[in-house]
């Protein structure tokens, strides 16, 4: 006899549209997969050596829930250098990737607030994480001209209406658009004015060619902003799933406790690899960034040549374009997969990972 209990469970899951949102891969599945925002790159031999050495020395046991101490310190330094944010090691929780960072912050900080304001256009992982346990979500309208970032006025409106927790991406995961300093400063002042908090996804920040300031770097912000992202992107660790949460001291215990409940700790192999990545990141990253920036400029030219509208963005690893379903179908037919903007909440937009294969994809549209 069929189980009614199971049928009820399945029906409940099926009705949860947010939970069933399709997630994008963190790294390309194959060479013509342009849907990821993580780079498919080789592991530096120094990372292989350091990680192997740690494992051979017996670092195969549980470690502290928030991560090994030197990696927490290295991530704090990295955030200071790359995003101007002053964090100490004690503010850092090492996570099993940026999706775990999203989940922990949305669910645990979110539990302290009646509602959370979320951009109508954001990474699908945000919606998915929100679907696990019901939260009241206030939509923050996306400003198309601004690369789908919510305008400061929209944020002010949500705060004025009583919402006290914001979830923001900068750079936006769809377009790579980042808030200008004056806008970030304005958001910071709003947080202070309303005694509100923000979860700030800055995972794509290392790909901004030029100055980038985290929301956490502004004078009013340190106790009001929790930053999340991937640790040391571009070092071949995308599928090792290593991310971070950088949170004000008061918010660390609840997330640390939930991390313990969910996973005890993050893979030691991944943590020791990330620790070595921290030491060589600057050298490798500068080369990658210069290369990607040039490649992105070339792609913009190509896109315009095939009459595709380029959406504003400043992260060198992604390029968003306005594109019809026919264009998506043509790309698929040519063997290319792209990130469909509809998954982010922006139909008729596609996102390409910046790569040589993306040039091939645009050439295929000629």
């Amino acid at each position, binding site marked *: 006899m069929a*189980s*009614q*209990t*199971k049928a009820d*469970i*399945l029906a409940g*899951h099926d009705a949860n549209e947010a*939970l*069933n949102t399709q*997630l994008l891969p*963190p*790294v*390309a599945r194959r060479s013509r*997969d342009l849907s*990821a925002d993580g780079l*498919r790159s080789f592991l530096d031999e120094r*990372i*292989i050596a350091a*990680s*192997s050495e740690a*494992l*051979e020395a*017996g*670092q*195969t*046991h*549980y*470690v502290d*829930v928030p991560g090994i101490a030197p990696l927490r310190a290295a991530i704090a330094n990295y955030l200071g250098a790359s995003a101007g944010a002053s964090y100490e090691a004690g503010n850092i929780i090492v*996570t*099993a*990737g*940026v*999706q*775990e960072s999203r*989940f922990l912050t949305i669910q645990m900080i979110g539990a302290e607030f009646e509602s959370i304001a979320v951009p109508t256009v954001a990474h699908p992982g945000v919606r*998915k*994480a929100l*679907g*696990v*346990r019901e939260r009241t979500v206030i939509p923050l309208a996306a400003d198309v001209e601004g690369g789908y970032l919510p305008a400061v006025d929209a944020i002010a409106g949500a705060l004025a209406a009583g919402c006290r927790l914001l979830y923001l991406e900068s750079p936006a995961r769809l377009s790579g658009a980042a808030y200008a300093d004056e806008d970030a400063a304005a958001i910071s002042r709003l947080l202070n004015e309303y005694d509100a908090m923000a979860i700030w996804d800055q995972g794509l920040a290392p790909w901004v060619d030029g100055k980038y300031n985290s929301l956490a770097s502004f004078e009013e912000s340190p106790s009001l902003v929790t930053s999340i992202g991937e640790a040391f992107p571009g070092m*071949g*660790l*995308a*599928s*090792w*799933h290593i991310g971070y949460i950088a949170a004000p001291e008061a918010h660390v215990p609840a997330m640390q*406790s939930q991390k*313990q*409940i*969910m*996973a*005890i*700790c*993050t*893979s*030691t*192999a*991944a943590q020791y*690899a990330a620790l070595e990545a921290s030491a060589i990141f600057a050298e490798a990253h500068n080369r990658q960034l210069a290369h990607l920036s040039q490649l992105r400029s070339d792609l913009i030219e190509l896109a315009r040549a095939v009459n595709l509208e380029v959406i504003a963005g400043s992260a060198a690893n992604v390029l968003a374009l306005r594109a019809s379903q026919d264009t998506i179908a043509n790309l698929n037919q040519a063997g290319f997969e792209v990130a469909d903007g509809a998954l982010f909440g922006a139909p008729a937009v596609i996102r390409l990972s910046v790569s040589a294969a993306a040039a091939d994809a645009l050439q295929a549209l000629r």
Partner: protein
Amino acid sequence: MSKKKAEGTNLLYQLIGEARQYDDVIVMGRGDPDFDTPAHIVAAAKQAMIHHHSDYTPPEGLPALRQAIADRVKRVNNIDVDPATEVVVTNGGQEALFLMVLAVLSPGDEMIVPEPNYNTYADSLAFAGGVKVEVQTYADDDFRADPAAVRAAITDKSRALLLVSPNNPAASVISPGDMKTLLDIAIEHDLMVLADDIYDLFVYDDFEHLSPAALPGGKERTLTLNALSKAYSMTGWRLGWIVGPADLMARVTELKAAISGGTSVISQQAGIAALTGPQDAVEMMAAAYRRRRRLVLDALDAMGMKYGLPQGGQFVFADISFTGLDSGEVAQRMLSEQHVLAYPGSAFSKDRKDYLRMTFLQPEEQLIEGLERMKVAMQNITAGR
């Protein structure tokens, strides 16, 4: 203002933190085997790094690992699963546990839990908004999960039955007869079964482990978790899995994607090596645990301490009611006075303040020393010192 007393998981972490202060501490608390991961598994991980096996992995895990898990659960547990649709790889048994609870329990739903039990089930249930309905088990009965007591606990809100065998912390193993009866009850009352098999390779004497999913009518209503942490000494790699019917596993996959996206590819490569490579290290470790269990039980007998016979697992749940103190206080005094870490029963269940959980995951000479120190601590406590 007095400091709030730590409870449950927080109490355990407070003790772990204090234990780090002592250079000569003997750890008989945490379930972390003292053996390092076998060398051939570490070597395989290194080879995977060298050969750049760091590409995309789907949320449910690498196909080769899911195949290895399917083969393992068939071989060890007699559960037939399709690796393509009925296996999800997780960040250790802990994430598997969290996912199982979230997949099945909604706010207000009741889960029947034989007590004492692993504290994270209560934490996960609280996150899901579910309600724990406790069925007590007793040392005099070797912590048997009595089917009649389970049946009596069922209400119209009951949705799931948790079966952890061997149990943590009580180390009891559900007999095949009881397992069949418990599954019959679950079928009769249309309950889902959450089965935790993480200690299935550690069963002692003539006791026998049986997975409910292996029984007729079991698989379609059972989610079964396991992990490589205990059997292969791979706690730091964070690699576990859930197997179950395809319809439910599709939902588990969505939850896994929502919570953490995927599992670290290097741990998965190590997992493939563990499950498909030589198994002699597992047998070596199992043999060591058998010897250590005997050693601990003999020491407790010599101290006149009562316990439920550990039929499986890697620990003993011992009665300390003779001290007249709460287990949290006893654990604290053992740690601060004798530098021996054992876990208080109160961290596992509010009704087990008279128990301590001691693991035998230390080399024998350390265990002997730890038990000697524990004896001194108990003597001091009972003498009122």
